[in-house]
């Protein structure tokens, strides 16, 4: 039985992150403030949280990263943290060979470079969904194809790219600098301004042999594991966003008067807020539980996939519900630009479509529960 309790260091980390982000939220600022925030985060060492000490990291784990992500979600921070730390570091940690990890991780742990990860649409790691193809080209490789929506695709300096290897050699993981010749990036106009995206076209991008990071034959399983861990961390971020929707709503309805009473005193409003709390705390319990079990290394791959899926479904439904109700219970101002609920609503919608929709995650769970021999 792994403990769900936070220790003193973890509680202190949560406080520090929450305090810092409360004072440095950038969701409503212009994009040119983003680099400064990311630099500060790197200086605080948070980009290093899950990287082992041997690669220049802090050697902490899923629990600490989830605490960070929850606070990021609460503040709607617009930073390369998710793409660089959760996605790119995650792929390196689980799908790259020892030498590649040694070479690539320190810069990402320091936060001196920002990165992203390219899998199939919506960050689908299954081999069949990958849209990029790698072909041997002398000693090196040549990448072709396009990825329609790359997270942080305009700002990332590096991309870790999963591609299908032509000739039946399975899946490989490559490092591609964003300024590589033959790579065309087009920024997209997205609804959720805190989660920028770009279209990437690989019109024959040549890479040298060292750009391939995986040990052949092991990338698919490693990427699946990295994807499951990313699901867990995205769930943590969603829990933070949902909790903020509830906090905004209880604060607003406590002040707002209709029919001579605070809106918060209406039983229907109270019950809706209570329902939000039930969903948030349930999702938070599972995120905390899965993170603890990941930290205790007590889950095999199948169990990790199942548990991460559970966390994601709960967090996705909680965030969508809370964002919806935050708009509804704010009344007219809820769907105006000046109030925050609409920003959470867009983030919740974004998060519901990436790293597996609830529908697909449930079906994957059902297959585990029902189709075993």
């Amino acid at each position, binding site marked *: 039985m792994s403990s769900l309790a936070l220790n003193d260091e973890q509680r202190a980390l949560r406080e520090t992150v929450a305090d810092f982000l409360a004072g440095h939220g950038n969701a409503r600022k212009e994009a040119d403030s983003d680099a400064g925030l990311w630099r500060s985060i790197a200086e605080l060492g948070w980009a290093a949280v899950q990287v082992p000490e041997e690669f220049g990291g802090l050697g902490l784990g899923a629990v600490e990263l989830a605490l960070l992500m929850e606070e990021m979600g609460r503040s709607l921070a617009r930073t390369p943290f998710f793409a660089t730390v959760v996605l790119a570091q995650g792929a390196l940690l689980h799908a790259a060979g020892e030498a590649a990890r040694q070479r690539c991780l320190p810069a990402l742990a320091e936060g001196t470079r920002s990165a992203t990860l390219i899998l199939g649409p*919506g960050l689908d790691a299954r081999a069949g969904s990958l849209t990029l193809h790698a072909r041997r080209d002398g000693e090196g490789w040549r990448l072709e194809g396009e990825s329609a929506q790359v997270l942080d695709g305009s700002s990332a300096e590096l991309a870790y790219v999963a591609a299908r290897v032509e000739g039946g050699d399975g899946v490989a993981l490559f490092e591609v600098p964003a300024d590589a010749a033959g790579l065309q990036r087009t920024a997209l106009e*997205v609804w*959720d301004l805190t989660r920028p*995206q770009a279209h990437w076209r690989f019109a024959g991008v040549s890479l040298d042999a060292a750009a391939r990071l995986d040990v052949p034959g092991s990338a698919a399983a490693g990427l699946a594991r990295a994807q499951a861990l990313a699901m867990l961390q995205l769930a943590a971020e969603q829990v933070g966003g949902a909790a903020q929707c509830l906090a905004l709503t209880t604060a607003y309805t406590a002040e707002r008067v209709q029919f001579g009473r605070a809106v918060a005193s209406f039983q229907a409003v109270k019950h809706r807020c209570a329902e939000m709390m039930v969903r948030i705390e349930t999702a938070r319990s599972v995120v905390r539980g899965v993170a603890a079990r990941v930290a205790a290394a007590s889950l095999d791959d199948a169990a990790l996939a199942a548990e991460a899926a559970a966390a994601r479904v709960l967090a996705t439904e909680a965030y969508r519900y809370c964002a919806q109700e935050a708009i*509804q219970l704010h009344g007219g101002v809820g*769907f105006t*630009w000046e109030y925050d609920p609409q920003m959470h609503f867009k983030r919740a919608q974004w998060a519901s*479509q990436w790293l597996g*929709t609830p529908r697909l995650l449930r079906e994957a769970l059902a297959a585990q529960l029902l189709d075993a021999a």
Partner: protein
Amino acid sequence: MDESTFRKEVADWMAARLSGRFACLKHRGGPGDEEAWPALRKEWEQEMAAGGWVGLGWPQAHGGRDLPLALQLAFHEEYVRAGGPGRIGHIGETLLAPTLIALGTPELQRRFLPGIREGREYWAQGYSEPGAGSDLAAITTRCWQDEDGNWRLQGQKVWTSLAHESDWIFVLARSTPGSAGREGLSFLLVPLDQPGIEIHPIRQMTGEAEFNSVFFDGAVTDADCIVGKPGEGWKVAMALLGFERGVSTLGQQMHFSHELQLLIDAARANGAARDPVIRQRIADAWIGLRGLRDNGLRMLEEDTGSTTVRPEALIYKYAWSNWHRALGELAMDVIGVAGDVRAGEDAGSDALRRLQQVFFFSRADTIYAGTNEIQLNIIAERGLGMPRG
């Protein structure tokens, strides 16, 4: 007139006129899209007026055609079927005009009805205030009469659709100093283009602004620009809201039906139509639309003249707004990650843009004109006789 002949007449007219320079208006200008082509849509209103399609249900004495319900309904259905654009004149035609016909003086009727019928004058609605949303009786905008009898106004109205495109606004304001609640209010007709009025757009979640705040700072209107007597404004305001559930609800359903069809086409195009769970939800959307449709027909037809509570009318706003909101969610689940990206204005993105508008703008549906919570209170209290508070 025979209904099918009439339908054909409408369809033919629409096919002939909604073309050429008006072709770009097809399916445009609905909720969430009201900023599309406002000037051209005003010309379209005049085109329609010239064609005799404004005031179909008004009495002939007021320049209307006094058509029976079935034909009005047929008109709205054919209009939407042909892709007729959102009606920039609908507040005047379907809300203010019936109110003037029912409660206005002959002078007011002569003065204002022709401008509405001819598509020359556009109206905005001045009810809600920052402190009076669900609780409309809490309004604080004041009005008083100068020595010459002209009315003056001071205060702020919000959520006024299309105020920046309108010529006039009807305003519910407090004329009896010190009064509270529903007492002491008056219903004034106020020209918008004057120094005492400022209109500020309210930016909504889509980044666009089809609502406004209207600020009155000593704004003025004529002494006789009042409907009902001073102090009777609440009664007039409620009578006007009563016209909101008219024949046009069935026109709204044609819009919904069009949106559902866009969604179905999108699902078939991208393969979501093969997903068993999406299939269940699309079937549910269709079922819900049947519910709105038959409920709307029942509302228009049954027991007319009866004074008892009409359950189907009581539930209608709650039912359609929540159906529409769910449709938007379904649309985005059908579209998938591609829905993250704002659809462009190019023709190829028409369907995607419309479905995204439904998703984002339907968030307002369950809030304006009585929030879900207010609707449920009303249903419980008026429909089921449950105690207040």
